[in-house]
């Protein structure tokens, strides 16, 4: 039954909504929670971007430089996303080695991305783009910082999962978590591409 059908049921009629019906989605609760969380994060970034556009209209907006390093960072984040996808597929097939290398490459690439973002900050500060000197700069630091914080949160889960796997857990025990990590990384990659596009375009 679709959600609309479910909401059209007349519950006072005795047999409707019978016991056979499946309650909820045929997915693990964690995955549902992740999707809802991604919705919340999407709202968060959408509101920041709306604020960005509203503030951009005002006279004092001065776009900041686009450090070339950001292209390398973007490549790193893509690598981490692809590696996690590899880990996810390997976990589905029960292949331990693919899972392990996928996770390790993803973690290393993500850490490199974060380090690269930090270096980009330093470069911009060295060029005199301070947060307080223009709203464009402030938005840049704020949005990249927030994106980085979300990645750090993901890295905590990544660390626990990798640790569990290295401690001798079976592939099946981490399969769902790896899948959730992969979804989360793809989502943050998408957010980064939007933010990077925004920076290049404005």
């Amino acid at each position, binding site marked *: 039954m679709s959600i609309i059908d*479910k*909401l*059209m*049921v*007349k*519950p*006072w*009629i*005795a*047999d*409707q*909504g*019978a*016991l*056979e*019906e*499946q*309650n*909820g*989605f045929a997915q693990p*609760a964690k995955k*549902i*929670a992740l999707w*809802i*969380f991604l*919705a*919340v994060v999407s*709202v*968060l970034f959408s*509101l*920041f971007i709306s*604020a960005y556009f*509203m*503030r951009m209209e*005002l*006279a*004092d*907006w001065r776009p900041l430089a686009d450090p070339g390093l950001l292209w390398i960072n973007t490549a790193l984040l893509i690598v981490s996303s692809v590696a996690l996808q590899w880990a996810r597929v390997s976990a589905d097939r029960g292949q331990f080695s693919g899972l392990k290398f996928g996770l390790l490459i993803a973690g290393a690439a993500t850490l490199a991305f974060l380090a690269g973002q930090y270096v980009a900050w330093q470069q911009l500060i060295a060029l005199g783009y301070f*947060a*307080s000197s223009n*709203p464009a700069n*402030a*938005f840049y630091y*704020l949005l990249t910082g927030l994106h980085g914080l979300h990645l750090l949160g993901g890295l905590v889960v990544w660390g626990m999962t990798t640790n569990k796997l290295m401690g001798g857990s079976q592939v099946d025990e981490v399969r769902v978590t790896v899948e959730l990590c992969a979804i989360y990384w793809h989502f943050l990659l998408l957010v980064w591409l939007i933010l990077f596009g925004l920076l290049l375009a404005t």
Partner: protein
Amino acid sequence: MTDTTPADVGFAPPAEVEEVELYHAKSWITKYVFSQDAKVIAIQYSATAIAVGMVGLVLSWLMRLQLGFPETFSFIDAADYYQFITMHGMIMVIYLLTALFLGGFGNYLIPLMIGARDMVFPYMNMLSYWVYLLAVLLLMASYFVPGGPTGAGWTLYPPQSILPGTPGHEWGIILMLVSLVLFIVGFTMGGLNYVVTVLQARTRGMTLMRLPLTVWGIFIATILALLAFPALLVGGVMLLLDRVLSTSFFMPSIVLMGESLDYGGGTPILFQHLFWFFGHPEVYIVGLPAFGIVSDLLSVHARRNIFGYRMMVWALIAIGGLSFVVWAHHMYVSGMNPYFGFFFATTTLIIAVPTALKVYNWVLTLWRGNIRLTIPMLFAIGFIFTFINGGITGLFLGNVVVDVPLSDTMFVVAHFHMVMGVAPLLVIFGAIYHWYPKITGRMLNETLGQFHFWITFVGAYSIFFPLHYLGFLGVPRRYYEIGETAFIPASAQSLNAFVTVVTLIVGFAQLVFFYNLFRSLTKGEPAGDNPWQATTLEWQTSETPPGHGNFGDELPVVYRWAYDYSVPGAVDDFIPQNKAPDETTGRSEPT
């Protein structure tokens, strides 16, 4: 829609809801302090919310003392007054009402009412409470920093909220913003839990449309909160950066005492949009759980199925959706594009349609019901009156031409206190009288309850009706003192003094309620499992109060909706949701 004989539902397929591995507490600390049991977390949430709410109550007394008897109290100066307003508003709306409805009632009632053993993520649930407590402590800490708490008004509008001249601009505003960010983080953890639990952990047979309206109200309100709080987070973080790093997201160029500040180019209106994009849904975050709970109270105590169950559910969803497109009706006087006012006035008036529908359905539920005037019922009926009152003044204010002259007067204060202060509070009281027997196993004292209800109900009207009138006279809100004006008659001052006296009496009368809560813990009449003869699952537990895991060895199976009251032909005037069709001769009929 076909009818079948009860024999068709005799077969029950194996449970689709997996039995969860419950976390079993090993020590006193993990059982009662760092507990992962939703029921304990609910009590923790409620106790903290009510405690901080008492601070909010005392602040309202202090404000009223100043307004009723200006130039009498030397310990209240203008800066104090603004700090009272700010903290009173923020505490009541966010740290009391939001936390109590969702963290308190949500945690206690969702698992029990849907037939689950606990929330789906108990650890995250525990974390949610502790982050909330930290947020409360940080907020209270602002009383102990140099300059005291912020006095920017609960809306925290820049530029004044972070500029010298506003009390608490040194530390108070920073603590307030950090506390809000923490609250949002904590709430998001809890909110994910409530939503996923309602979606995934319902027991067998508990379809969406068999959920009690209490669960529906809390569920939709949680979704609203998850989507609306990010707006406050965005506004709060940017304001924090303006304050701490001297960015200019919101701050225009300002010359202060002849010196021009570092700020420039920002727009305060942007903050107002962000704030109210959160702020208006917030009204319904507080309102929808109250709507849901009051529907169940009315149905149980009128021994009557809720009128128009499906309409009630659809109206909750419609109100939830509409609440995201009305925010700028808080900003008619902000200087935004006048055409916006037209749009937002229209959406605001449209939201009255599903809301009025709910009111009609509540009244029609009472119609020819077997009304039992228990204390929860008194509060529920009191809510209907109050909500109609507050709702109708909302229709006045939703119109731009009416709002502009009234916007800065006491009329607005009276309106929002009626509709989102008193009305939800009456439901909270009713709900406490209703579920206290399940939480503690004992009834609350009836006589004390009567006293508490009448003082609170009549008192609330004595306080807020005069404020409407004062608003019409033009008495401004947010003013520390009015002084002498050409247009406000001297009699307004005696009305103000009257309101202050009533406020003190009503506030003190709440002590009777607290006395009742504590006394009944040991001296109350034993309640039994189902004192109100209600149908929903929380009343069908094998022990009262419900033990760890809520339902003994086996989860209940649900065969019917939550409103089988006074079913013709049935033995009792209620049929519990988990009663199989062959156990009863009655059938329910649509209204």
